[in-house]
C-alpha cells in the first residue's frame, strides 16, 4: 500500500513536469492552430543547454533556466518566420509538414555533431525519505519550478497586455486585427513563448534523467497525450493533463508489468481522442 502511494506521489511530481513540457505545444496550438512538431527537439535543446552550460561554466543547473528561456524564445521566433508564418490558415497538413521538416533538419544536424551518446547531468539535491521510499530531491525541485513557471504563464496571459493580445488573437484573429492588435507580431511572440517553454521544461527534465538527441521523441508523444487529456490551447489544462498522465503511470506501474505501461498510455490516448475529439477539458474553443 505504501508502495502504491509512493508511486503515485512520484507520478504527481513527474506529472507536473510533463504538464510544463506540454504547455509549449498547447499554447501554440491554441493560438494559431499549428502543431509544432519541433517541440520534442526543443525540449532536448533545453537539456543540451543544461548540459553545455553546466559543464562549460560550472554554474548551478537551475540558473540555466534563464538562458534557456531567452534562447528558446529567440529560436522560436526564428522558427515562426522560417516555417510557420506562411502556413497559418492553410490546411493542417502544411504546418505539420513544415514543422516536421525543420525537426528532421535539426535532429540530423545535432546527430551529426553530437552523435547519439548518452548525456548525464549530475545534480545533487537532498531527497525526501519516507519510510523505505525516497523521493529524489531533484524531482521535488523540478515539480515546484514547473508549477511556478505554469503560474507565471497563467499570470502573463491573464494580467499583462501582451498576454491579453495573445488571447485575443487566439480567440478571433480578424477581430483582433480590426481593433489594432498587430496579429503577426503577436503570433510570432506566442510561438517564441511556446518554444521557450519547451526549452525550459527540457532543462528541468535534464536534471531528472539522462538523455540523448533522440529522447525528444518520447516527450513529444507524452506532450500529445497530455494535450489531449487536458485540452488543447489551455495551459491549466496542460498541467492537469500532465498530472493525470503522471498519476496514471504511477498508479499503474505497481500492478502491471512495466512494459505494458506504454501500451496502456497509447491506447488511452487514441480512445480519448475518439471519445473527446477536442480534448477532455475543452468546453470553449481556443480557451486560453
Amino acid at each position, binding site marked *: 500500500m505504501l508502495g502504491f502511494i509512493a508511486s503515485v506521489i512520484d507520478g504527481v511530481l513527474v506529472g507536473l513536469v510533463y504538464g510544463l513540457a506540454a504547455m509549449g505545444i498547447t499554447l501554440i496550438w491554441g493560438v494559431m492552430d499549428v502543431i509544432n512538431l519541433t517541440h520534442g527537439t526543443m525540449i532536448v535543446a533545453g537539456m543540451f543547454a543544461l548540459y553545455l552550460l553546466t559543464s562549460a561554466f560550472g554554474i548551478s543547473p537551475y540558473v540555466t533556466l534563464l538562458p534557456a528561456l531567452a534562447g528558446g524564445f529567440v529560436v522560436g521566433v526564428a522558427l515562426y518566420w522560417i516555417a510557420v508564418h506562411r502556413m497559418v490558415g492553410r490546411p493542417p497538413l502544411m504546418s505539420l509538414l513544415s514543422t516536421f521538416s525543420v525537426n528532421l533538419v535539426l535532429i540530423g544536424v545535432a546527430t551529426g555533431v553530437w552523435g547519439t551518446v548518452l548525456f548525464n547531468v549530475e545534480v545533487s539535491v537532498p*531527497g525526501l525519505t519516507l519510510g523505505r521510499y525516497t523521493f529524489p530531491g531533484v524531482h521535488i525541485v523540478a515539480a515546484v519550478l514547473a508549477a511556478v513557471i505554469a503560474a507565471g504563464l497563467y499570470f502573463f496571459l491573464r494580467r499583462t497586455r501582451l498576454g491579453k493580445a495573445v488571447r485575443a488573437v487566439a480567440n478571433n484573429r480578424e477581430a483582433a486585427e480590426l481593433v489594432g492588435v498587430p496579429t503577426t507580431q503577436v503570433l510570432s511572440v506566442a510561438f517564441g513563448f511556446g518554444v521557450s517553454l519547451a526549452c525550459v521544461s527540457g532543462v528541468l527534465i535534464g536534471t*531528472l534523467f539522462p538523455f*540523448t538527441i*533522440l529522447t525528444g521523441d518520447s516527450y513529444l508523444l507524452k506532450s500529445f497525450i497530455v494535450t489531449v487529456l487536458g485540452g488543447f490551447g489551455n495551459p491549466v489544462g496542460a498541467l492537469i493533463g500532465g498530472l493525470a498522465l503522471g498519476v496514471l503511470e504511477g498508479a499503474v506501474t505497481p500492478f502491471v508489468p512495466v512494459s505494458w505501461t506504454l501500451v496502456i498510455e497509447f491506447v488511452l490516448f487514441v480512445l480519448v481522442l475518439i471519445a473527446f475529439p477536442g480534448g477532455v477539458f475543452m468546453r470553449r474553443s481556443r480557451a486560453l
Partner: protein
Amino acid sequence: MKAHHLFAAAAVLAAAPIFVTAPARAADADTIVIGMTESQTGALNVDSVAQQRGIDMWRDEVNAAGGIKVGDKHYKVKFVVYDDQSVGGRVQQLYTRLINQDHAQFLFGPYSSGLTATAAVISEQYGRLMVITGGAEEKTLELGNKYLFQAITPAGSYLAGAVQVLASKNPHAKVAMVYSDDPFSKAVMAAAKDLAKKAGLDVVIDESYSPSTTDFGPIVNKIISSNADAFLGGGHYADGATLARQMYDQKANLKWVSLLVAPGDAKFASLGPAAFGVTTGSQWELAEKFTPQFGPTGAQFAKAFFDKYKIEADYHSASGYVGGLLLQHAIEQAGSIDTDKVAAKLNAMDVTTFYGKFKVATDPKHHGLQVAHKMVLAQWQRQNGKLVREVVWPDEAKSANLVYPINSTQ
C-alpha cells in the same frame, strides 16, 4: 501524341541511371576484403565503437606484419565498413551491398544480437562466412546455418556465474529481475531465471522495460516494494547506467546488483558511488591469464590497445580483436581464402587465445554456437579511493575477493 512521346523519353531518361551500374570493384590481387557494419550512430554506438576499435587494431597489426599468409602468398586485409545507425533494416541493405558491390569475401557481424540476426540472414542467403563477435543470442544460430561462427559466450551463460555465486552467499536471496525488452537481454534473463530457480532462489519480480525508457523511478519503487535483496538485469550501456544511478539515488539498498554490459565499460566508473559493488558477466578481463596458442597474451593486447587508443580495452574490443585473430588463423591453416575451406578449419578449431577458448558446435541444429568460451564475473570495487573493476569469479581467474553484501559498506 507529343506529350506521350515526351513522357516516354522522360521515362527512358529516368531509367537510364539504373543501367549504369557502379564499376565493379575487382578485388585487388593480393587483398582480402572483409565487410561489416558498425553502429557509428544510434543507441548501440558506445559498445559498437568499442568493438570496432578491437577489429581495427587487428587489421593494422596484420597489415604491419605483411598480411595474412595464404600458402606462399601474403594477403593484406582491407575493411569496408558502413554505419548501420543501430537499425536492422539498414543492416540488411548494407550487408547485401557489401557482398554484391564491394565483393567482401568474409564478414564480421555487427554489434548486438538483434542486428547480428538480421545480418546473418543475408550472409547465409549469399553463402558468405561471418564471424560473430557482438551477438550472444543463441536463436540466430539455431535456424540452420552453414557459415556462422560465434566467438563469444552465448547469452544463456552470461549470468551463470552471478547466479552461482549469489546462491552460495545467500541461498534464500529474493531476486528482482528487471531487464530491457530486447533479444539479447531477454535471452540472458530467461536462462538466468532457470538457473536461479534451480539454485533455489526466490524470483520476486520478472519484468522487462522498453529499451527507450529513461525514467526508472517507478520500476525502482517496485523493486523496493518487493523486498528484493538482489538485482539481476539491465540491457546495454545507456539503460544499465541509468538504472544503477537511480537505484542508488532512491536507496534501493540491494545487497547484490548484477547488470548486463554496462559495468563492462570504463565509463561506468563515472557514476561514482552508484557504481560500487555492481557485478557483471564479462567476456574478457585483463586479469584472466590464459596461455595463448597463437596471437598476443592478454597483457600484450591490453598494452598495444592502450598505446594505440589511449584508453583501456574492454571486453567488446577484445571480442572484436579475437574475431579477426581467429579468422586469420583459420585462413592460414586452410592455406586458402575459399569460404568452404576456411569454414572447415573453423569447424575443426579447438584453441586457446588471450581471450580464452574457442570451439564451435558443428551439428546442423546449432552450427557455429560457441561451446568452449566462458564468462567471468567482474565487480567494481574501491582501491585507494578509486573505482576499479576486478575479477571475482571463477577462482582460477580472480584478481580480488567478492564484496558482499554491497550496501553495508556504502
